[in-house]
């Protein structure tokens, strides 16, 4: 039987849900069985996503492996999934980070293991669904499903201030996404009116995008709907000034929660901007583009400056995420094909590198129960393997050429320079800043005299365990591979990225014609 005969996208998405249901029936005290079952289902989803990667035809335009079923025909709502190059790389990123996170939770999570693993698997379903849904209503459902397990993961298994952090996370996200719901319904209604009152296809992404590309949505609807979509996604990215939930959520979340938060959840925002906000409301996107570019530049600089003074390892990485994700939004809203490709690449790389950085911090936190930079020092002498690994990912995050972090940012620079040299200069300046705060942090943690605090820990402070190495090796490998062969990803995303930019520029042309 051929792979293409299977509803492979549904399988990838719902295999973790099957895992969650199976786990519900396993007695809670059989922790080992629960852990391995969860890992097994996450790995199954990962293997399926790799099969998809192999079977995917990059040259083929549009969506592949599409599955469509009527769900609520009265309103033209479908169960429709499909994959293109952009969603494909993010799906594989999600399945990869999911099993790594579950593996990384084996030792740290000892309480309520069953609930934790169920939450994690449901979270994976929601994230995969967001990347694969081609019906706006379905997309919204997956988008909101992500919220609940993450709320539980931070709130139950998080640090001391976890309840404050998790409620802040939920409320921020909910305000944005509910306004997006109004915008989705309004767009679908506009489509329905334009099609003689027929709801058929009113929530279908492909039809809506085609409709939008021909200037289908009226200008005032576009402005309102774009702002609603943008707010939902900007909160998730998070863009300055909607980022304040992120440092709290990151700091309080358990290690694996931080990994998924940084690795995938932030990408939901970036993906939403690329997939929905810009193609559906192209002229509004262009109207607000310059303002968003300015916000992105502020995020890039602000995140970097605030990172310098952070006393807490996790908080520092959280703020660095604000800075790094600023490159993503910059790359999208500068409206240049290279910059958009760079933005997508940056999303993947940030997911891999920041995920790995959080894993490294988790390793040390588990031994020291502290993340204060000032209490560390001389870790390279005590735990050389850990220090080398951490240093490697720090260099990747700084953007060392040859490692993957460099390529994405470089492409964003190139694209930005073509459109606005001033913006490119400002963004480049931040490369220096990011080297400052990351390397300085690494120096304080890894080199110098062994601190009294670490001395006092004695044999409690041991180097990485095999299972911890196992979680970091795949990420490190990918960072090197994508650093040397960025074409592996660029080949996949090049087509859709160019098509999207053509769409934006074409829509603007149509609108200009209307204005004349």
């Amino acid at each position, binding site marked *: 039987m051929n792979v293409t005969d299977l509803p492979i996208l549904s399988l990838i998405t719902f295999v973790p849900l099957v895992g969650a249901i199976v786990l519900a029936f396993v007695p809670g005290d059989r922790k080992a069985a629960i852990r391995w079952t969860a890992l097994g289902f996450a790995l199954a989803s990962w293997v399926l996503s790799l099969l998809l990667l192999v079977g995917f035809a990059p040259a083929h335009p549009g969506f592949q492996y599409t599955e469509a079923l009527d*769900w*609520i*025909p*009265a*309103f033209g709502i479908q169960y429709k999934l499909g994959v293109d190059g952009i969603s494909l790389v993010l799906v594989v990123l999600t399945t990869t980070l999911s099993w790594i996170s579950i593996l990384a939770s084996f030792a740290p999570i000892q309480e*309520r293991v069953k*609930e934790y693993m169920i939450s994690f698997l449901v979270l994976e379903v929601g994230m995969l669904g967001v990347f694969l849904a081609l019906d706006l*209503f379905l997309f*919204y*459902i997956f988008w*909101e*499903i992500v*919220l*609940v397990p993450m*709320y*539980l993961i931070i*709130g*139950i298994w998080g640090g001391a201030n*976890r*309840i404050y952090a998790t*409620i802040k996370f*939920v*409320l921020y996200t*909910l*305000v944005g996404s*509910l*306004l997006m*719901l*109004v915008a989705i*319904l*309004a767009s*679908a*209604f506009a489509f329905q009116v334009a099609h003689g009152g027929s709801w058929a296809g009113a929530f279908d992404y492909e039809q809506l995008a085609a409709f939008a590309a021909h200037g289908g949505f009226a200008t005032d609807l576009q402005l309102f709907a774009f702002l609603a979509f943008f707010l939902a996604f900007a909160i998730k990215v998070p863009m300055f000034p909607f980022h304040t939930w992120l440092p709290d959520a990151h700091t309080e979340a358990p290690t694996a929660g931080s990994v998924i938060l940084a690795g995938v959840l932030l990408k939901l925002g970036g993906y939403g901007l690329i997939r929905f906000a810009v193609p559906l409301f192209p002229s509004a996107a262009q109207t607000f583009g310059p303002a968003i570019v300015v916000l992105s530049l502020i995020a890039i600089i602000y995140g970097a400056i605030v990172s310098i003074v952070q006393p807490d390892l996790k908080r520092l990485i959280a703020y660095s995420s604000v800075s790094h994700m600023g490159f993503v939004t910059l790359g999208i809203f500068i409206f240049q094909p290279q910059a958009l490709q760079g933005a997508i690449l940056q999303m993947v790389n940030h997911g891999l590198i920041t995920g790995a950085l959080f894993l490294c911090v988790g390793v040390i936190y588990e031994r020291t129960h502290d993340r204060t930079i000032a209490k560390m020092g001389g870790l390279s002498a005590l735990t050389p393997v850990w220090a080398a690994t951490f240093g490697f990912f720090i260099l990747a995050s700084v953007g060392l050429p040859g490692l993957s972090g460099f390529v994405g940012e470089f492409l964003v620079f190139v694209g930005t320079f073509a459109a606005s040299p001033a913006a490119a200069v400002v963004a480049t300046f931040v490369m220096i800043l990011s080297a400052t705060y990351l390397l300085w942090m690494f120096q304080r943690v890894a080199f110098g005299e062994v601190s009294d605090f670490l001395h006092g820990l004695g044999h409690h402070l041991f180097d990485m365990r095999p299972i911890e190495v196992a979680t970091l090796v795949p990420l490190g490998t990918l960072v090197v591979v994508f650093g040397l062969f960025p074409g592996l990803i660029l080949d996949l995303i090049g087509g859709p990225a160019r098509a999207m930019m053509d769409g934006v520029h074409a829509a603007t042309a149509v609108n200009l014609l209307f204005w004349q």
Partner: protein
Amino acid sequence: MAWADLTTIAPIAVAVLVAAAILVVDIVLPGRRGPAIATALVGLAVVALVILAVGRTPATAFGGAYSADDLTTFLDILFVCIAALTILFAPDYLEPRDLPVAEFAAVLVFAVTGAMLIAAATDLVVLFVALELMVLPGYLLVAFAKRDAYATEGAIKYFLLGSFSSAIFLFGLAFTWGLTGTTRIAEVAAQLSRLASGGGISAGLAMGLALMTTGVAFKMAAVPFHYWTPDAYQGSPTPVTGYLSVGPKVGAFAIALRLFVGALDPLRADWLPVVIVLAAITMTLGNLVAITQDNVKRMLAYSSIAHTGYILVGLAAFGGGQQLGIQGLLFYAAAYTFMNLGAFAVVTALQRRPGVTSQLTTFAGLGRREPLLGVLMTLFLLSLTGIPPLAGFFAKAYVILAAVQAGGWLTVLAVIAVLNAAAAAFYYLRVVVYMYMREPAEEALPSGQSGLFRIGLAVTAVVTVVLGLVPGVLTVVQQAARALHS
């Protein structure tokens, strides 16, 4: 009176017989709850079958005063579900407190009979009588724990304000009758469209409209006519609170459908702004006050006010010209019924042991103590918040879609509604915080539930999960909404 009239009103007649039968069973077999509950449940099942059988052929009875159409069928079935679920939940609360289960069930079935009559009323007088039939047993239910000071206080408030609002409502009906010379809803509508055709309405008509709106707003607990709600809700035995939060509320919306959509349709332009403002302040105030509550029962009482606001969005969307608004209203009413009854059922379960309060602290650590109750409560609360793919989400999406379609000020109302939904997440999720993220203050004893109670919980949970996912529900809702304009 023709024989055909009797078959048309068979659901009401059978429901009255069921209530009487419960009392008879209680007299014959005193002191045993089993037979009475069995009579009630079997009886309600029979009522449901009769409703479905009668509903197959839409008909009117008594010269057009009573209408058995798809809307009647839909609402009647909903009311029967409310009664059956309340009877499943109540014994676990009443028995430990030595409160009579059989009388409770009988009074409840009488109340629901009134609600069913509202759903079918196409005459102003029948509508009023039906309303009183529904609320009078309600006063009894609130005062059911007659030695409890809170219950007495709540019952007196409920009774006084309820009678007051009934009088206001009746006064409004009288004005309408005086100006149109008829009490049949279809004829009232025809007369009103003649009266309003000259643009602008007379002062008398405006007075009548204002009084009727006020009366209905009281009954559905819309702000600023909601003051009786928190005390009546908190004082009542918890299963009664659950019933009050859905039964009379859906009943009040049934009045709104028959009256505003049926009779007052020609005056749409006059009542639409009022309904929009009522909806906006009802949900906003309900939510703001709910946020400050430390008592879950009281919190749910205020949150039910907020839900009144969301349901009113559906009515407003209809006023704005979208028939979809009625569908949204009906769907919301159904979804709200099951999720809210479910949430109250969990509170009831925890309060099985007399003396247990409904404070937030009662819920501390529930997720660990009683995983199943914790999961179910989380489910109901998430649905009330409006998180997909649960019923509450589809309900909100439905009314918001209708409002967005109507456009103009209703789009603003839709935005107010979603911002409210986000604010509501705060207090709903706070209960989840207590259940999963805090440890219990002292060792709480397991609550334990009877088999019937578990069945009720399972039903509410399953409906909360599947109501939006099953496409067939939509067809039923559309048919029911269409009945108003056939």
